């Protein structure tokens, strides 16, 4: 029986003796005992080999399943991402400087002539818009823009601008304000997306996140990525990315030592800017003061901020319509 101890350089006689030394003499009791040990080891080795092969097969099967899951996740991500143009993917980065500029030194009011046409502003506000409102100090930097966008909601200013109250009276405006305060602005302004929607959802469609999927090492990590993608506000993010206009509202700091309302409202100036996303062109820029002191006691306690915002929206609409 050949053995690995024999080399090609050995003489035939030596090779035969080496082989005999390995196989042993058939009749010796020691050799018989060794054969039993060999049999036991052979069986043991068979078990070990089978176990290793099973393990390897299981690993390969698991690896195959992992790749399938990875491919499915990547396909989903890429399908979502394919709905956007590269410019749309970069919307947050593109609009951040415009928001900062709106909060910077105020260059004066600006109304595009087209907007002054009857129904022009309303038509513009019916197009896809992303909206953000924040304090002037917060919007001074791109990082501040992200933070402000996170807490910026569809408020009374937006609602009154898109769906103006019929009269600038406190009672009429209060109706819109209540709607806004109870979350009703979302349903009435479906064409408007919050800038925060883009901040929250677009990173899931970026190449960095796709790389995380590619580099995920195990099914557990891949499952977590899948869960994160499913929870991400992709629909609103894609809608935000497709916006044609950026609507920025900037609350300047309060003016003078006057009293502050319970909801934090006090007399201050609000700026509003409408910027075309495709070009960065400013179509509307207006600045108006608001002062809650003129409100009734009952409304001021609870709705000072909302009423001021709604009044500001009416002022903007009025300023645009005035020739």
């Amino acid at each position, binding site marked *: 029986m050949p053995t*690995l101890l024999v*080399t090609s350089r*050995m003489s035939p*006689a*030596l090779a035969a003796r080496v082989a005999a*030394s390995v196989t042993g003499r058939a009749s010796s009791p020691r050799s018989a005992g*060794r054969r*039993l040990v*060999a049999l036991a080891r*052979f069986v043991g080795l068979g078990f070990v080999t089978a176990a290793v092969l099973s393990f390897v097969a299981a690993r390969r099967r698991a690896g195959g399943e992992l790749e399938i899951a990875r491919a499915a996740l990547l396909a989903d991500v890429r399908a979502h991402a394919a709905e956007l143009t590269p410019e749309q993917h970069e919307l947050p980065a593109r609009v951040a400087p415009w928001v900062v500029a709106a909060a910077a030194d105020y260059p004066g009011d600006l109304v595009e002539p087209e907007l002054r046409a009857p129904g022009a502003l309303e038509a513009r506000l019916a197009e896809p818009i992303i909206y953000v409102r924040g304090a002037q100090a917060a919007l001074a930097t791109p990082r501040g823009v992200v933070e402000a966008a996170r807490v910026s909601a569809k408020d009374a200013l937006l609602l009154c601008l898109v769906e103006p109250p019929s009269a600038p009276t406190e009672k009429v405006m209060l109706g819109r304000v209540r709607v806004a305060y109870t979350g009703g602005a979302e349903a009435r302004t479906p064409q408007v997306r919050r800038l925060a929607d883009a901040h929250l959802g677009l990173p899931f469609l970026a190449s960095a996140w796709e790389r995380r999927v590619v580099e995920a090492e195990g099914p557990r990590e891949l499952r977590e990525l899948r869960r994160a993608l499913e929870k991400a506000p992709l629909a609103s993010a894609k809608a935000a990315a497709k916006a044609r206009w950026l609507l920025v509202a900037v609350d300047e700091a309060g003016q003078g030592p006057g009293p502050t309302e319970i909801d934090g409202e006090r007399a201050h100036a609000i700026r509003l800017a409408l910027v075309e996303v495709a070009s960065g062109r400013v179509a509307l820029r207006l600045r108006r003061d608001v002062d809650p002191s003129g409100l009734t006691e009952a409304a001021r306690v609870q709705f000072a901020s909302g009423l001021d915002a709604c009044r500001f929206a009416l002022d903007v609409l009025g300023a645009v319509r005035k020739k």
Partner: protein
Amino acid sequence: MVCAAAFGRSAPSAGGLLTSHGAMSEPRAALDLLFPTPALRIDLEQTSLGLDLAFAGGVAGGLFSDALDRAPVGPTAWKAASFAADLFVPAFVASCFTIGDGQLVSQKHLVKLVTSPPADPAVVLHRRAVVDELVTHPSRREALRALYTDLLRLRSMLEGATGAGKWDANRRQLDILTLVKKLFDRLAELPAEGASSSALARLSDYGERVLAGEPYRSLADLLRYDESMATLSLKVGIGADGRIRGFQLLSVEEDRQNPFVSSAWRRWLAKVELFVRGYRFGDGEVMARLIDAVFDGLRDELAPLVQLVGDLEFYLGALGLRDAAAARGLSMCLPKLAEPGEPRVLEGLWNPLLLASGVAPVPCDLRLDRHDACVLVTGPNSGGKTRLLQAVGLSQVLAQVGLFVPARAGCVMLGSSLVVSLIQETRVDQAEGRLGMELLRIRELFESLPPGAMVILDELCSGTNPSEGEEIFELVIRMLTRLRPQTFITTHFLAFATRLEAAGEIDELRFLQVELDPNHLPTYQFTPGVAQTSLAGKAAARLGVTGEQLLALIERNLAAAEPGREGQGRA
């Protein structure tokens, strides 16, 4: 012709031996220094099995001595029982056949050799040629001595492996194989045929044959593999403080020509293979299998080395006796082998038993005009008669086995047998009295004595009254002469001996007497004639057995038994 078959072994007549494989193995038998036709006398099968066991685990204590003890020593007509005990041959061999300070591996084997003179005179001549060459060429004797020393080391390593479990078994076996290689190298270096005039050339032939064989080459390859499977070249970095800071491996060279060298992955797979086959997993197990394979090829070449140990002890022991004698100013020689009718001469004959017991022997000259004489030796007690008979007997024995005799020069005829009766001990179970036992010995002597044998008798018929003893004595002498033996007999029947000398009726009778100096003290020399007195009185006086000395002893004993007696006497 001496052949293996003649030794009672199942061997072919050519002197070779049938191996267990059924193949003729003539060359192995060539490692025989004792017989003209080489024979493997040890039991090959038993010895090979013993070597296997000894090599595997050192569990064959007594392998060498057992093999030699059991080995036959060739056909002989002599019966050791007839002379060995009376000549103290075992004691003689034990004390005189010395090789350095060590003990003989098999004293029994050597005693058997010495007490079994070969029946074929050619064997005697064969051995004398070896002895002569060793004396003539001291360097060859030294080479044999070195060979013997290495054989003893091999025996020690094979048999004395008690506690071997405490160290690496592979290392022990590799050490044994290293020594085996050295032994074969030594054999090959001995003088070859042409340079050597005796059987010593067989050693060289054997060595060269082994060196030319595959098993030896495999042995050399394995030892080289063990010594230098690979060579690493290292660069050693030394720090400012003189300490070694690191090693850099420059190159690795493997002895790719060596058949035992294989690649690292193959060595690893070999270990796996052995593990699956039931061995341990490790480099040691791989080496063990290779050692096994190499030893397996050499096993049949090793068994004859065991026999060689016995042969070397025969020659080196005899040379050791010669050296010891020379150190005491005594000579030994290879005597001339005489034909019947030639004179017997032993000049400067001395008794080796005296040398062994630390007594300085006094050499004497023994000259007789014929070998088949019946020599009557007379002289005083303690005059050296019995010592002379011992010396003559041992000389005959040594000459018969082809060795030196304890004499400066000599001419000795080979005898067909030897009967010696020097000791007259009383045994518990003896059926007869002293005379009866003596007569029984005489009867036994005539029952088996062949013509031309040597007979040595001390104080024949001294166990009965002289007149009747002399009658038996004369009868024995007259009957012995019919077989023409070489006879030496001592007697204190001085008047009887004188009468025989004067009568001159028996041609073969010769008479020797102990020589005395002017003070009547023995000179331990022997001259022709019959002694006039046994000087028993002098011996008695020397040993304190005179009337006065005995009376003094009696007085002392009486005084000791009766404490008051001495005081009363004084008063």
